[in-house]
């Protein structure tokens, strides 16, 4: 039987299409329990590769023959070894090319809407880590919001649609992933905008992003309006694009809200978080389509793989927007929080320009899910 390599892009399609799929994950039990490929109709078997060195006979009856089987490991070496053994035992299986490393780095662009006069907005779904970034395109110009460190993906995409990147934004100083904003701005001569309250320690120059700032993209003037919405960090800023979309950063997600503790001041920022969510957002049109910077669980994906919902619907359904009592709200967002993202302090320092880890170290720092929310 042959062993096929399957790319992260192909696996993403399977996730989006909610296909049935079987994953044999041969990483350590701890690594698997911490973070794995999520899919609605996925089944899993986790057996570390070092327990299979003498053969795969013991797991053969647990590996189905009636659905596609993907062997997964951290980088790919062990998954190829195990896939070969299964193949010798007569099974037809694939392995994930590049392993969880490439899964963590894959970005899938999905168009989420049309803007006036032919403009478009794209969501880049980082499916393995749950990070969402955006490209607003209008008349040959593009703006990027909350980019990941996989900067070539945005540069190539902009190139492919004939758009020049002129503005790059970060809604806040990220703690879960390394921003590609500064690199993209340097490569394209675009303006790099950051909220100054999050940028007090950064080592590079940037354009201060303040509530009330308006930035226009393209001759047809798609408007990006900044809205100060602190709480996840003290500088967190949202954007309203073309009066239609609310880019909520890490303040509001589909099924959860931002956590206030990643920059160390949970108790202080609870009040800000509440005001952003319960007052400032309340004053906005309920027709706005919310585009967050993360998703937490695969159920939050729409049919086409995108992540979005009407603000009015979130006011009805998102638990974090429906806690009437302020003390209870404080408890929810400061107690029993999920573990903090891997290496989040070093990630923050990297995003400030204080440290410059090499690419391999950057990958390691970003291993695992994003964990920016409280539910």
């Amino acid at each position: 039987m042959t062993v096929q390599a399957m790319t992260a892009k192909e696996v993403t399609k399977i996730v989006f299409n909610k296909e049935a799929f079987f994953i044999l994950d041969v990483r350590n039990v701890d690594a698997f329990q911490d973070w794995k490929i999520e899919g609605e109709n996925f089944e899993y078997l986790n057996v570390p590769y070092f327990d299979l060195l003498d053969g795969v006979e013991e797991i053969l009856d647990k590996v189905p023959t009636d659905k596609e089987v993907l062997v997964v490991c951290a980088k790919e070496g062990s998954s190829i070894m195990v896939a070969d053994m299964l193949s010798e035992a007569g099974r037809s299986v694939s392995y994930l090319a590049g392993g969880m490393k490439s899964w963590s780095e894959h970005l899938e662009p999905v168009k989420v809407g049309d803007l006036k006069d032919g403009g478009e907005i794209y969501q880049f779904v980082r499916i393995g880590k749950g990070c969402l970034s955006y490209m607003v395109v209008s008349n040959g110009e593009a703006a990027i919001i909350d980019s990941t460190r996989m900067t070539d993906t945005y540069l190539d995409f902009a190139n492919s649609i004939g758009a020049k990147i002129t503005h790059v934004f970060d809604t806040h100083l990220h703690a879960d992933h390394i921003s590609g904003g500064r690199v993209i701005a340097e490569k394209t001569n675009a303006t790099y905008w950051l909220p100054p309250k999050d940028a007090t320690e950064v080592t590079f120059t940037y354009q201060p992003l303040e509530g009330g700032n308006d930035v226009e993209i393209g001759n047809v003037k798609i408007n990006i309006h900044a809205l100060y919405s602190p709480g996840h960090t003290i500088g967190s800023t949202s954007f309203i694009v073309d009066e239609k979309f609310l880019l909520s950063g890490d303040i509001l997600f589909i099924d959860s809200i931002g956590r206030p503790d990643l920059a160390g001041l949970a108790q202080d920022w609870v009040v800000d978080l509440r005001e952003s969510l319960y007052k400032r957002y309340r004053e906005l049109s309920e027709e706005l389509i919310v585009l967050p910077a993360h998703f937490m669980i695969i159920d939050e994906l729409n049919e086409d793989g995108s992540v979005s919902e009407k603000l009015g619907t979130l006011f009805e359904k998102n638990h974090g927007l429906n806690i009437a009592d302020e003390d209870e709200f404080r408890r929810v967002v400061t107690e029993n929080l999920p573990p903090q993202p891997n290496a989040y302090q070093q990630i923050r320092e990297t995003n400030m320009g204080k440290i410059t880890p090499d690419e391999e170290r950057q990958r390691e720092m970003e291993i695992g899910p994003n964990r920016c929310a409280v539910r």
Partner: protein
Amino acid sequence: MDANKVLDAKGLACPMPIVKAKKAINELEGGQVLEVHATDKGAKNDFAAWAKSGGHELIKHEEDDAVLKFWIKKG
């Protein structure tokens, strides 16, 4: 620390350090110690988990520059 055998797995990618370590430890007697040098960063978690699963004991590990060193006592 005295090892009965030293395995150089530097420059090898996963799964080879463990594959070779398994072979090497098979040639030792119970209670003897295998010392492994590796550069694959994933080796850190893998050696700990492998030793546990195989009934061996990871008695020591240290990082020397970019080289990870492990001492595993055969179970």
